[in-house]
């Protein structure tokens, strides 16, 4: 933590605060995004032109929307690995059912939304009622849905849907001054993001985070955990559906559209500082994570990095970014813990591996050592819904 003191002039202090936010785990993704965007603009100045930039946003829109959906699942403490398959299925449904008949656009769109919601419902109910880990449920769904889609279509696209339908992902409002065209995708993304921000501030949205943080507390507080959690899966499947609508316009129908989106989305969400295991995260940062990831691909492209190297660079950056926020989180929390007391007790030796931290002794009971636990829970949650599952079932309902 750098030596920013509070007795600076106010402008400096404000700048410092912005700087601190950017280097904090919560803001790190924005810093990363800014750096990457600058890098792109340096490598290819035309990118900075509004017209080009809006195209970039258009392209990121589906990924960002998927990441927004995944955000709700992850912040609620679960995983959704089936999103990619949902995208594929929706793309194929659009192609097959709409065909060249524009009049079918609306009914099929409604059908797609219903189908998306249904998949989410199935995922959610199996996770909540049968208590199967979401990793497994959605992995099974991923296999089954993709297989089913391919079976249905005989392994190939029947054809692209009518142009009117594809306009959503492909077209835009033309003749806008500076940017020339405002793609519908960008509008949809803005709407989805706005809705997501609004929703996550709503009581229901806040409940999702609380549930992800501690499902037992949520249940004891009268939350319908099964429904809240299920709804996160429905949100993610619906967002995959929206992404599918955009992609079928942007790219057209193909069984490989959407493949791998689940991992991209999870990566984006984690880059956005959202903690796997739930309870912590900001939806805007998750969307920013998607932008950062796409910007990263673009940088690698403009920098002429051979396409085969890109995965490697991507892997390294993901690890570093997450390690950065994981370690700053720790040091920040440590700082706070000491801050909290005017007269900090001399800590036991910092070698945590051999030493017991005081909280270790009190963790199973509500003994008085509350403050110390801050550090204990700063350990990254192992994997989704670990320790929590126990709490969840303890009540024995």
């Amino acid at each position, binding site marked *: 933590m750098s030596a920013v003191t509070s007795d600076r002039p106010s402008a400096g202090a404000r700048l410092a605060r912005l700087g601190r936010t950017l280097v904090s785990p919560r803001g790190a993704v924005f810093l990363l995004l800014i750096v990457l965007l600058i890098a792109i603009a340096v490598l290819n100045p035309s990118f900075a032109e509004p017209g080009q930039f809006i195209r970039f946003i258009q392209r990121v829109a589906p990924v960002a929307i998927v990441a927004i959906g995944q955000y709700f699942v992850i912040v609620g403490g679960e995983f959704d690995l089936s999103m990619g398959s949902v995208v594929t299925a929706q793309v194929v449904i659009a192609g097959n059912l709409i065909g060249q008949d524009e009049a079918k656009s609306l009914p099929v769109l409604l059908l797609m939304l219903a189908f998306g919601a249904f998949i989410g419902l199935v995922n959610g109910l199996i996770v909540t009622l049968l208590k*199967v880990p979401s990793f497994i449920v959605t992995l*099974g769904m991923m296999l089954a849905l993709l297989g089913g889609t391919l079976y249905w279509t005989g392994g190939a696209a029947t054809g692209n849907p009518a142009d009117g339908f594809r306009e959503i992902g492909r077209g835009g409002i033309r003749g806008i001054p500076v940017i020339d065209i405002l793609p519908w995708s960008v509008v949809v993304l803005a709407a989805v993001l706005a809705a997501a921000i609004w929703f996550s501030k709503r009581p229901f949205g806040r409940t999702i985070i609380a549930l992800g943080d501690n499902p037992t507390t949520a249940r004891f507080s009268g939350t319908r955990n099964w429904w809240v959690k299920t709804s996160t899966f429905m949100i993610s499947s619906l967002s995959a559906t929206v992404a599918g609508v955009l992609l079928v316009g942007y790219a057209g129908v193909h069984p490989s559209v959407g493949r791998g989106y689940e991992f991209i989305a999870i990566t984006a969400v984690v880059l956005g500082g959202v903690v*796997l295991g739930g309870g912590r995260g900001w939806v805007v940062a998750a969307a920013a994570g998607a932008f950062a990831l796409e910007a990263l691909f673009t940088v690698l492209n403009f920098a002429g990095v051979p396409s085969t190297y890109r995965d*490697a660079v991507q892997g390294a950056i993901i*690890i570093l970014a997450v390690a950065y926020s994981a370690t700053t989180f720790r040091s920040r929390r440590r700082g706070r813990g000491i801050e909290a007391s005017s007269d900090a007790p001399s800590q036991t030796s910092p070698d945590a591996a051999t030493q017991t931290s005081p909280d*270790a002794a009190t963790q199973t009971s509500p003994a008085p050592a509350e403050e110390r636990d801050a550090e204990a829970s700063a350990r990254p949650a*192992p*994997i989704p819904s670990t320790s929590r599952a126990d709490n969840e079932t303890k009540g024995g309902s």
Partner: protein
Amino acid sequence: MSTATPTRAPRRSGSRRRLDSSLIVGIALVAVIVIGAILVASVGRNFFSAGNIRDILTGMSVLGFVAIGQTLVILCASLDLSVPYVVSLSSLIAADLMAGNPANIPFAVLVVLVVAALIGLTNGLIVTKLKVNGFIATLGTGLIIKGYLDTNYKGTSGQVPWEFQLIGATGVGPVPVSTLLMLAVALGAAFFLARTRTGNHMFAVGGNEQVARLSGIRTARPLIVAHVLCSVTAALAGLLLASRLGVGSPVVGTQGGYDLLSIAAVVLGGTLLMGGRGSIWGTIGGVAIFAVVDNVMSVMQVNPFLKDVVRGVVIVAAVAVYTSRSLDRRRPRFTAGAEPPAAAEPAAVDAPKGGAA
């Protein structure tokens, strides 16, 4: 009164234990085999013929290796998504170094294992020291290896000498040597878990890190060792594949989908995805279930697209069976309508005044 200590306790705990994971997996496996055998018979084939058994066992070997390592990592409440790339890389290093010359076999195997161990060490250090969630850490290292493979290899490469190919092609009766090797490694891993301290501590670290730490365990170590061993077993899978293919292949790991399938097999084998409970033999059972299901579907000539649907359903359904029966940890005191426990003997209430014995 000490005589009042319930004698029913041991019986109860005994019967509870008997229902536990490995056994359930075993029952599921037997059920799958029975159903499979009937289905296979319905198309006029013999499920238990030597060729079919060999097919199933061969199908188990490679995934088995990977899943053994994955079990260790999951026991520690981490994950390894980099295994497919380690598998591919190992097959390539092996085939390239052997270059068709049997004299190179020991050296090649050694290099493969060392490289894999280093990858595992990296994974383990990233997870424990950089505090990156295992999911992301291994996704990242997997991508890095993938980048290396795509850049440096164009298609299959190297040549595995005939002597080494024998490992993949020899059998004892219907049992392929590769399966025996896999089972030997499973035995080794089970032994490791049961009989070494690090193995024992894996359960502790995955089960409750705080308790582990309070008991004086260096919690990073078991986790790192698990990652190393996981990469090493993935490398063994790569060696086996090199032996079967006769060449190294940069895509053989991804072709097998070993990352997600191994995780699914581990969970199918009754190991908790959140760590702390599980067994190698359960995992082998999970792998066997997959192999049998795949075999039956192949014999039945199920449409390949539908195969994935069946796999997906089997994974979820099987895990649902396990989880639904291990939820309530709290023991009921009263069963509906049962006799209430007799109130304790009204012992003489002496005035709260007494001395030491």
